[in-house]
């Protein structure tokens, strides 16, 4: 299981191993062929086709058919109309990522450095809840956060201010759901990189007058940066595209861009605009990822 921890943490230091000499130059291509074709066919081609769809004339309909009119204005329209949803998606995803980091770091740290012989067991504890279907867990959250549940009544009794006196169908509930569902995507890569952290470096820092806080900020954190980067990406990206949490735990005032895309595709049937929204989302995420990875200075992250 410890290898599970390597998810997204990137290759450990060291150059790729080479055996004797590459006698068979064609070998890598043969190895790549099936998987590569799969990705090309079922990821790249659809993506390109989706892009084409995003440029159809939006006045068409399924019934009437669509005409390709290179309608770049679809993008402008989508962006203009759904800017709040975009901002909300990115905002929620960012907040989710930050909270996941704050929760996941201590957990990964504890498992990696204090876990000892319980390491694997603890890691299993992180993963096992995720074999219970994600929807079931989210429904369980609905029970826990229910307006008439004991959590809300306790908080109310303690006069903790809640939005409209409830938890369900509020922004905090959506964020909580997102955090819960994406936490393992943060913990696993973090664990992988913290596991490689030499505890002697922490001791050395202590020996060199670093108090616990400095030990963390000056040594542990910078050294686990690859894990932080991988974890934030693996959390942020799916969170930004999610719609289930907003739908089950929020109201339509919490709806994210995913809800819009989903409804356009599956309910309204406005394909060009749905495709344009999809592509805008993908582009926005890629740009953010690119900038982030650059700034974090870890190029070979994934």
């Amino acid at each position, binding site marked *: 299981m410890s290898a599970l921890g390597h998810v997204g943490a990137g290759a450990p230091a060291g150059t790729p191993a080479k055996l004797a000499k590459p006698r068979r130059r064609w070998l890598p291509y043969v190895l790549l062929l099936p998987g590569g074709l799969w990705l090309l066919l079922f990821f790249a081609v659809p993506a390109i086709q989706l892009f084409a769809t995003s440029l159809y004339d939006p006045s068409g309909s399924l019934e009437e058919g669509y005409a390709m009119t290179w309608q770049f204005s679809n993008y402008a329209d989508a962006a203009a109309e759904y800017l709040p949803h975009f901002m909300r998606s990115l905002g929620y995803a960012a907040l989710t990522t930050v909270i996941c980091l704050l929760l996941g770091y201590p957990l990964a740290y504890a498992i990696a450095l204090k876990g000892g012989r319980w390491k694997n067991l603890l890691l299993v504890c992180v993963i096992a809840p995720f074999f219970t279907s994600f929807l079931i867990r989210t429904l369980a959250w609905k029970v826990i956060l229910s307006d008439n549940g004991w959590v809300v009544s306790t908080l109310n009794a303690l006069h903790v201010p809640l939005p409209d006196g409830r938890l369900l169908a509020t922004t905090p509930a959506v964020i909580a759901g997102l955090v819960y569902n994406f936490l393992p995507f943060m913990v696993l890569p973090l664990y992988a990189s913290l596991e490689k952290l030499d505890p002697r470096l922490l001791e*050395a820092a202590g020996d060199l007058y670093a108090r616990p806080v400095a030990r963390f900020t000056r040594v542990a954190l910078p050294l686990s940066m690859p894990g932080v980067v991988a974890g934030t990406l693996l959390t942020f990206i799916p969170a930004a595209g999610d719609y289930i949490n907003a739908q089950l735990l929020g109201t339509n005032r919490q709806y994210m861009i995913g809800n819009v895309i989903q409804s356009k595709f599956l309910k309204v049937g406005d394909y060009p605009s749905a495709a344009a929204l999809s592509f805008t989302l993908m582009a926005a995420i890629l740009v953010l990822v690119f900038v982030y990875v650059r700034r974090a200075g870890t190029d070979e992250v994934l």
Partner: protein
Amino acid sequence: MTEQPYGASGADLNLVGVTKSFGAFTAVDDLSLTVPQGSFFALLGASGCGKTTTLRMIAGLEEPTTGRILLGDQDVTRLRPYKRPVNTVFQSYALFPHLSIADNVAFGLRRRGVKGIADQVERMLHLVDLDGFGKRKPSQLSGGQQQRVALARALINHPQVLLLDEPLGALDLKLRRQMQVELKRIQTEVGITFVHVTHDQEEAMTMADTVAVMNAGRIEQLGSPVEMYDFPGTAFVANFLGQSNLFAATVTGRSGDDVLVESHGARFSVPAARCRVTDGPGWLGVRPEKLHLATGLDKVPSGHQSVTGIITDSSYVGVSTQYLVRPAWGDELTVFSPNSGVAAPLAVAGEVTVHWRPEHAFLLPRPEGQTVAPVVDAEALA
């Protein structure tokens, strides 16, 4: 909060009855020790005997189960590591891979909020002969260079005590000797207390003022290297600090200042001053370089004691030739014969007489029934 007087004129390091147990296992057992200020102290012992644990307790990385650790008259037993005027050079260097060399060296000062660090770092890098390397990352340095950075990183804090945990363990022989000279020079220059842990008894002996040999969590013997080598306290020390030829012997009597012993049917004498036991069983010991070879009993100088045997192996190691000689009773003797160009090499399978001066022998305690000298087997202990 009261800051430690970093680099203040130090005081002796005292360990008083320190014990450290991990569960049921006692790694360090009621250890008491005084290391005078400014001295170079070496801790020697087989793998797993508790050396690292001792250092870690001094550094504050491990808390003693019982006992106290004092620096001068301050009790530091329960002080957090970052509050102790003690620094460590770790076995594996433990350089921060994400920081430049200069930042590594500056680390301790920065944590203490010292200003104007650049100058000090530069001077320190100069001291360890690494001028101009400040901008590199640790991975861009060779092993020996990294070792010196680890040293600089610790030294720059002017600790009262510097702990060195096998800092040379990973280096090859040549580089190791070079670094030993360097270390000794720096210690003499800066004059702080060094506590140096090593596996290599030659290293301990060349560098230290005082050597302590540890065995299974306790100190077996402690003293100046010359004295301990010359007249070890136990068979363990005799075998651990250099090589020894030990014969199972029994004291048979006394003749003036000499103790008389019998071993494998032959009779020998040892000056009483060089005997740790004066009756009952004992180990009669002589160092290999104190043994000389003669081609016949008649060539043995008068006053020397001797044993005759067959040469079973000879190996030329440049400086000296090492002979193995098997006497009638079996166990081989090791003889180092210096290649100073005086005598011609001897042939394997020939008969020789091994002889020594009685005052080069020593007599050590031997538990009744033990007939094989305690061998230092690092593996068995690891």
